């Protein structure tokens, strides 16, 4: 299935793909793994303003925001 990606903040410059093709029954954790982003960016997925847990199943054609937890302050 195809998942559409919307990189946010520091992820934007590091994630060129606008969408990825993953197995039909994949969960969020699998999607994030497939992005090959540096582990230290510690990215999560957000849909409709809500954070998705890593075992949450995705639907074909879904759009997810990819956000890094690496915050400064």
């Amino acid at each position, binding site marked *: 299935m195809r998942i559409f990606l919307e990189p946010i*903040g*520091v992820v934007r410059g590091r994630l060129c793909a606008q969408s990825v093709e993953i197995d039909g029954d994949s969960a969020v954790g699998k999607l994030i793994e497939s992005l090959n982003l540096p582990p230290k960016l510690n990215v999560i997925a957000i849909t409709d303003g809500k954070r998705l847990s890593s075992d949450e199943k995705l639907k074909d054609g879904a759009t997810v925001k990819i956000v890094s*937890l690496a915050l400064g302050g």
Partner: protein
Amino acid sequence: MKGSTGHFLSVNLSDGSTNSFCPPIDYYSRFIGGAGFAARLFVERGNFETDPLAPDALLIFSLGPFAGLRLSGASRFSAAACSPLTGHWADSSCGGNFAPELKFAGFDGILISGKAEKPSVLVISDHTAKVETYPELWGLGVEKTTAALKHKFGKASKTLVIGPAGENLVKFACIINDGHSAFGRAGLGAVMGSKGLKAIVVRAKDRNFIVEDPIACRKLVSELNSRIKESVTLSVMRENGTAANLEGGVHLGDVPIRNFTSNFWEEMAEALTGSTLSEKYLKRRANCDFCSVACKRIVEITEGPFAIPKGPGPEYETIVSFGSLIGSMDLAATCKAGKMCNDLGMDTISCGATIAWALEAFENGDIGVEECDGLQLKWGDINTIINHLLPTIAEKRGGLGELLAGGSVAAARKTGSKTREYNVHAKGLEAPMHDPRGGGHGLALTYAVSHRGACHVSSPMLFMEMGACYYPEIGFDYELDPLSSENKAESAVLAMALGSLENSACLCQFADREITIPEWVALFNSVAGFNWEIHDMMKAGRRIFYLQRLMNHRYGLRAEDDKISSRLLTPAVDGAPEGIKIEFDKMKTKFYNLMDLDPETGIPSSKTLVDYNLETEADIILKG
């Protein structure tokens, strides 16, 4: 004692005398330096009954053992005193270039008492110091004062300066190092101002730094510097500053909006984020001494109402304090407001938060045009803030300036009970720009139990919740869900000890994320010769936490004061954390149990005081 000079400078401004003294040698391994060392010195020499702004109040600057080491993130130091803003013990941390220079000049810190008859400057050079009168500097902003001091003492001299806010005893006045870095929090600039001390200048000829094991130290520092330079997360900071991921923070619900009444504002996210600052206004990057991270910004705005010449730019806290917190998404305006706060010498967090309180109070009719000296206050009206409020507060001009110069908690106390609902603080210190509802529920706990009040640098809890830490050697080998209370008390126990270590060793919270626990121990051992194992180091961290807690008990704080404003415990109305409640009481109860803190007094049991070798200190503090 290796890594330190063994000498503190003592200054009595009332008679202009300066002396050097040697603190007891055991203080160095028991309280390390920085915040911990300053606390122990106060217990020895301070008076808990003294008003924070009285002449005999103490103001202490304290270095860590690594100041002067050519290690990224090691050039910070602490200032500490009874806070005029909160009325209890507080310390503040500053980067920049002053700490190494003071170490090279022969001192581990400065202990200041008394009040100068005329506005004065403390001038420190190699192993000597003198107090000189400079009445012509009084009333000048930080920029002109710094420039005048550099002209007089040389460009290579390093400065600590207060602005008009410190002179006027604004309760959140800060102290600025070389025009850019700040002892921002807790109003220590007002303590300096109350002493008639406009500035401190230091210049050292030598660059000597003697460590316990030079070979091991050089190898370790080289490894750490390489790792810090190549770190993905720190390269993000180098590229786009501490606000690099502000946009991500908005989507997580971490960034406060309109005085913490909202957790999501999509248009603002991109407008204020670090990459936008880089694209629009960044001229170059700047760094603290010896640091490759270079998260500081030098900006220039060439046109428009907020045009500013090339100079220090805002970091994350300032961008949010004068951006989303007050309902604005004008990035140029945050640059201008930050520059003005630096020049006037005001903490951007407490200043922005106090203004946000006023905006909400005005919106709800709790204060009106009459109390605001004829001004209309409204969300996002950054023009009024820049052109009227900032100078009014710094000068304590009119009713509004006087009201806001005391900070948001005092302002609400004067104005009326309903406006207390608009306060967002812990122990009287306004909350920084990370909302625990989105940033991480453990942050609510560490804001509450931090000795100085709502503080994001009292511990690395934010980083631990965000997955930036992995410390299996001390039992932190699991992932935390930021939006849950699970494992947060256990993590906070470690976080508070680590925070005490960071603020006493005076290491930067960004850079030291790349240092493992065994490497921390190796640093202490190779530099200071402590001969520690991991548990010795963690014990020192917790000892410092307990000491600061004992001190604040003497200042009247109890377990019931370990709390945060109800606004932060009310579920968010929007954004990623919408509807999720923080289980604060559950986390606090567990934290208290794990730390052996009494549920009423908030201090540890006699047994724990013995276990942490704090009997002497407890006797002095509790029995007076």
